[in-house]
């Protein structure tokens, strides 16, 4: 698992600024603050996190009303039932016919990474962080998402102490879908709220 992280086209750090992290790592290994085995284990754990975990949560909520209620009431406790941990208290916000939710961290990049995998670069970008709270509909349009005028758009600003996850609307035409088929429809961007889950 860890080997495939080193892609042949990865740029080797070459500037002083880029080499700072390389230098720190080499000094910390030398001083035995941590070992290469410790590092490999952490990288493997981080790499294992992906939107598939968030999709499991959502597919379960779509098919189990009692679970959906528990999820909206206490996100952290509900995902623990699936052996998941967001690393910080989790609030799940539900999209409905009237309300669409979208997530940001205006100050930094807070994000339920164990449920969604690493943040996309745009989530961390100044352009997204600054604009989505000011003109969410324009930002959503850049992601190809157009909502009816009478839909309320709520933007949730995450912090290190509180993470959000969007519970998207279940698309029509999926009534007979298995959990696995539902999970396959659910994307990272829908769980951030910049897109919706399209009908299959």
């Amino acid at each position, binding site marked *: 698992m860890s080997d495939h*992280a*080193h*892609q042949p086209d*990865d*740029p*080797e*750090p*070459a500037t*002083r*600024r*880029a*080499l*700072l*992290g*390389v*230098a*720190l*790592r*080499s*000094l*910390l290994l030398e*001083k035995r*603050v*941590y070992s290469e085995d*410790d*590092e490999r284990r*952490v*990288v493997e754990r*981080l*790499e294992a996190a992906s939107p598939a975990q968030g999709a499991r949560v959502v597919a379960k909520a779509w098919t189990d009303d009692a679970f959906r209620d528990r999820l909206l009431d206490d996100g952290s406790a509900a995902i623990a039932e699936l052996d998941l941990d967001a690393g910080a208290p989790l609030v799940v916000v539900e999209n409905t016919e009237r309300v669409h939710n979208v997530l*940001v961290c*205006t*100050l*930094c*990049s807070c994000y339920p990474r164990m449920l969604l995998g*690493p943040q*996309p*670069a*745009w989530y*961390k*970008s*100044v*352009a*997204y*962080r*600054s*604009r989505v*709270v*000011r003109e969410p509909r324009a*930002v959503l349009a*850049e*992601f190809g998402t157009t909502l009816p005028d009478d839909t309320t758009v709520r933007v949730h*600003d995450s912090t*290190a102490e509180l993470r959000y996850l969007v519970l998207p609307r279940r698309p029509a035409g999926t009534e007979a879908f298995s959990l696995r088929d539902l999970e396959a429809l659910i994307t990272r961007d829908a769980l951030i709220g910049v897109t919706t889950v399209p009908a299959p």
Partner: protein
Amino acid sequence: MDSRPQRCVHDVGGLPDGPIDRSEHALTFWEWRIDAMIRLLFKAGILVDFAELRRVIEDLSETDYGEMSYYERWSEAGAALLIEKGVLTRAEIEARIDELLADASGSVSP
């Protein structure tokens, strides 16, 4: 940019900005390693938490903040805290970067 002196450099919510670059970027091998390094420093009890790391990132100059990549900011903040806590010295970090640069210039042309 000059019209926001009252804001810290990271406090961008609500400011005007241009189109969002939506291109996907898989983390590089080195980015995973830096991410792991910071988490291992938490685990070792050397760094407290992300709030501590962010304190240093938020003190960066607007130029540095704008020019550094995400994980370069993490490295910069990690270095400042490791020096502050006496785990590493500025001199040994700079010396190690010099060695790495010398190694790189020996094997690849810029």
